[in-house]
């Protein structure tokens, strides 16, 4: 029997300028332990949806409940439960050293200094950044910056981690490292919601897939069930699937 949903999205609409853009009538639920892959072409509404999950944007109509509480009434609870990692790591790293940046979120939550230290150590370890704790973030590689951005969110101990296009502008080793970290976070009990254009990288990890098109949710099913129906929505079908083979995992 399935437990209560962590997040419940009910008829969510967000209209930026009164012309009907943004997202429209989106409804779905997120359960503990899921790995949800969100796909769709540019402008399909993925980032807008993600910003609602973290209560950065408020619905124009409809509602979004985190643990049964509306984000309108308790946005801080939504931010504690849902960690959002943005596409551009450079503009979300605020600390002068790796450890300082990871401590930024727990400091905002007003935690005691020893608790913050504990959270920083755990996040550094989880993302494989322990050796870089005193490094200046501007000297890190693209993949390391992306892992730092995730560590900053992990240190806030959220149940759900939302990653907006985490693989953009990453080289192959950086991508593999990041996939391994995301897989580890999922294995250790985090619920993952991730958007990407190149679904081949994580489709074998995903337990569910959602496709957005022009601000609407057009498909919500098991990833394997949607593989042959992606291209009309601007999402490339993995090469192996096109050739009639099983898609291989990127991370071991």
């Amino acid at each position: 029997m399935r437990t209560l949903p962590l997040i419940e999205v009910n008829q969510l609409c967000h209209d930026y300028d009164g012309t009907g853009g943004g997202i429209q009538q989106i409804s779905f639920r997120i359960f503990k332990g899921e790995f949800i892959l969100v796909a769709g072409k540019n402008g399909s509404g993925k980032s807008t949806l993600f910003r609602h999950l973290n209560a950065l944007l408020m619905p124009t109509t409809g509602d979004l409940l985190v643990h049964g509480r509306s984000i309108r009434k308790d946005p801080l609870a939504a931010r504690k439960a849902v960690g959002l990692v943005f596409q551009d790591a450079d503009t979300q790293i605020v600390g002068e050293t790796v450890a300082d940046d990871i401590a930024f979120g727990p400091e905002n939550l007003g935690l005691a200094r020893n608790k913050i230290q504990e959270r920083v150590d755990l996040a550094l370890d989880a993302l494989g950044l322990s050796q870089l704790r005193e490094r200046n973030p501007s000297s890190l590689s693209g993949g390391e910056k992306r892992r730092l951005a995730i560590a900053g969110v992990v240190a806030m101990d959220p149940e759900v981690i939302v990653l907006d296009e985490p693989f953009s502008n990453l080289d192959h080793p950086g991508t593999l490292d990041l996939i391994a970290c995301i897989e580890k976070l999922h294995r250790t009990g985090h619920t993952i919601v991730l958007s990407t254009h190149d679904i081949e990288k994580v489709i074998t990890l995903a337990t569910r897939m959602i496709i957005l098109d022009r601000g609407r949710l057009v498909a919500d099913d098991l990833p394997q069930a949607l593989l042959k129906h992606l291209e009309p929505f601007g999402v490339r079908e993995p090469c192996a699937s096109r050739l009639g083979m099983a898609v291989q995992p990127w991370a071991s």
Partner: protein
Amino acid sequence: MTLFTYVPSTSLAHGLDVRCKLCCLSLMSIATLQGGPVPLSLITAMVAGLLIATAIRPLTLFRELKLFFLLVAMVFISRSVTTGGEPIINLWGISATKQGIVAGALLSWKFVLVMLMGIVFTKTTKPSHVKGAVQWFLRPIPFVPETRVAVMISLFLRFMPLILTQASEVSQAQQARCFHLEKNPVKRLLRPTVPLLKKTFQSADQLALAMEARSYSDKRTDPVFIRSGQEPLILALCFLVLGLSFIV
């Protein structure tokens, strides 16, 4: 610039409470600007000791500060030729006086000392600790939002290199399209400035969102200060040197 970045170590200066270091820096700066050769020699010995402890190579120091040394040389020359007194060198009708050379050397010595003290401070102090100290010093001042000021300092330190990188990228992208051939000075100024400002504002917008996503508020955990126990002794020594600078 590598000279002004924090380098972790276990030296005496690294272990001192940042608030003590800021006080010492202020006292020594006053003593340097106020004092004559005796206190300056004392301060030089102290700064040299700290520089050796932080393991900065003299060659690296000179290379990184070559423009500063050029400025110091200009100050020295200017003082030497504009101060009245007994002329000892005469070149192309310009005389350098004995009094001018002494005054120029003293002033240059002071400038170099203040710069070296700044380097010792930045090399031995984490920017987050400076932020914490600023917050602590501002707290008693009414109507000053000390947490916000501290975060602004932190963001400035963090984003300055990013803005410089973006400026370099914009400049290179425009040079790749032969912008360096443009003769109009207004266009030369505006063309790189507009995209850079646009990028900077976009980054600021994304930064604000990212901070909000991480629950940023003014009610944050207070910074902690770690003491080595040497602070009273070091402060006393700095006060002694400051006193000497007014006497000798």
